[in-house]
């Protein structure tokens, strides 16, 4: 009986670990492909892109996700990109949605597929200050669909305005929050500024 119990315990731990690895296999599909240079970039295509990242999780410093509607690794250690968890963080989601270049002096449009692991060079604070050739600040009262609101620690993109004066915001806010659309009042919050991407074509 002792041998059974010892072997059972060891096997269940090893099998569980193998299962976790299987669950984590999404990372094997992440890639470093070159982005596609685009001449167009519309706000509704950006809505499509950010909306599809919903449910795919949050990874601080990350930028790879698939489209299976689940966070493949929901309990990875926060703040450590080497855990290879699924999802972007707030600034990574904004960077990819806004089709930006990894060179902050380029303002062209670069389409990164979901599985392309890239975070981009900007922090939320950089976006707030309008740093980088493609970015600029806007008056909060005039910010529209797929413009954003950024603080020194967070950026969210405006999915649509709402009746009560707040906004539906698509954002990757924290490991426990995942990526999703939330109703937020960043527009009237003094710690947030209005930010936008140059070069929308429709």
């Amino acid at each position: 009986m002792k041998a059974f119990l010892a072997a059972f315990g060891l096997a269940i731990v090893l099998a569980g670990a193998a299962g976790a690895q299987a669950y984590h296999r999404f990372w094997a599909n992440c890639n470093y492909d070159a982005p596609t240079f685009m001449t167009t970039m519309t706000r509704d295509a950006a809505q499509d892109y950010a909306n599809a990242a919903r449910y795919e999780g949050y990874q601080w410093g990350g930028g790879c996700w698939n489209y299976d509607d689940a966070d493949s690794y929901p309990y990875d250690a926060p703040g450590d990109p080497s855990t290879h968890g699924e999802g972007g963080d707030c600034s990574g989601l904004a960077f990819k949605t806004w089709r930006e270049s990894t060179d902050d002096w380029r303002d062209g449009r670069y389409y990164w597929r979901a599985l392309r692991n890239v975070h981009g060079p900007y922090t939320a604070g950089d976006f707030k200050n309008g740093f980088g050739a493609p970015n600029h600040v806007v008056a909060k009262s005039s910010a529209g669909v797929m413009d954003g609101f950024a603080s020194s620690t967070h950026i969210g993109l405006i999915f649509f305005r709402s009746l009560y004066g707040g906004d539906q915001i698509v954002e990757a806010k924290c490991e426990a929050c995942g990526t999703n659309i939330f109703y937020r009042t960043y527009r009237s919050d003094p710690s947030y500024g209005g930010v936008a991407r140059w070069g929308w074509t429709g």
Partner: protein
Amino acid sequence: MRRPGIRSLAGGAAGIVAGVIGGIALTSISVASGPTPAVPGLDAAHAPPLLTRPGEPVTLRYAIVCAPRDDGLPCEGSGSVYVRAGQTGLFRQLRLRRGAESREGRYYVELPRELASSRDGFSYYAVLRDGTTGAAMTVPAGGEAAPQRSFPLGDATEVDLGVHAFSADRAPVERVVAAPWGSDPGEAGLAGSRELGFGGPSSFDVTPEGTVAVLDQVNGRVELWSHGGVKPTNVEVSGGLADFALEPGGAMDVLEPPSRTSPAPVLRSFRRDGAPRWAQRLSDRTWAKLAVGPAGPIVQQQPSEQWLPLAGRGAALSRAAQAAGGRPGRPFTNGREVLVERVGAGELRLAELVGNAVLRSWRITSVTSLGEVQLAEPYGDRLVVVMKTYTDDRSDYAVLVLDRAGVEAEFAVEPLEWAESAPLARFRLAGSSLYRLGSARTGLFVDRFDLEVSR
């Protein structure tokens, strides 16, 4: 070392087999019980024109949101709006046009003048389609049974707030709750970090007698504060920034946000002692505010942009039943419904409805930008409104007591919001008192303001 016997070897082998099977089964269960795919592949957004001015042209605009295309272009959507003059009768189909711009929604229809200026307003719903997959969705979700309802603002009372004077805030008359950060009784839980920001108790409510209930979701409890002290009641919640409401019988409702493992928002109802009553997924993907209506909890949801009931006769309603009960305004026990529409940068339209008729309405304009409306509730024969007014680097809450003649009382409240809360959960009205949930580096507090103090 003793040589293993045949029984030991057999036992070990059986253990390995059982363990491997058990491990795989556990992993499978953990994967299978994880988030179920919830993206329908099609989503939408629409801001309904709830209250229209005489002669105002009406364009209904929709964002149709599909799975991203590999060529990076927006989806090929289409759809129709079914609209009628007034609030009853047959709907007429109008096809949506595809515009060149998507800043306010690419798909639109301009309402014919006879509909836009109908004396009884108009009502409508849209059926939207993804041309690639053929998927379709109805907005609002209740469709023909609970369409969007738009009403003429009519002879609205005009209020011009002009330029807001910051730094002229009213002080509260009383601090009714003061809780340092922590997890002991009488303390308030704080989550987060300096790098990512902090979240404190995300919502609260107040009984007619003045007992304050604070949702301390970080510590998994509700704390009831009264002059007799503080009484914690444990509740099983996720810890996300949730909204909260107390029902008249003492039941507690917690409106949870989506999370990493639960991609859809859920309303959890608890008995007075914290025992779970029921939990129900919302009809829509996003919520703005929880309140208690005449028949139970109600939630303002998107993309429907309606108040939907979550329960009837004490039991949770299915998602379809929620959608079928959608209304444009928040219903109150006095039989009236309050409609709220923020327009542009500095305009707020308000109306009280009885049935589908406008009883009275207000149009408030401001040179300083207006933000979110935290509260709009009947107060005797008046209406109390609390809304944010802001510039790019400052903000205040503007509190207005409105009557038919205009502004009866008005004051400003300084936003003290060191920790984040639910979006529209900062104020509650009880009797003649307005309560404000605030926070500072040292802890959480609830302040009371008296609405009867003259200007």
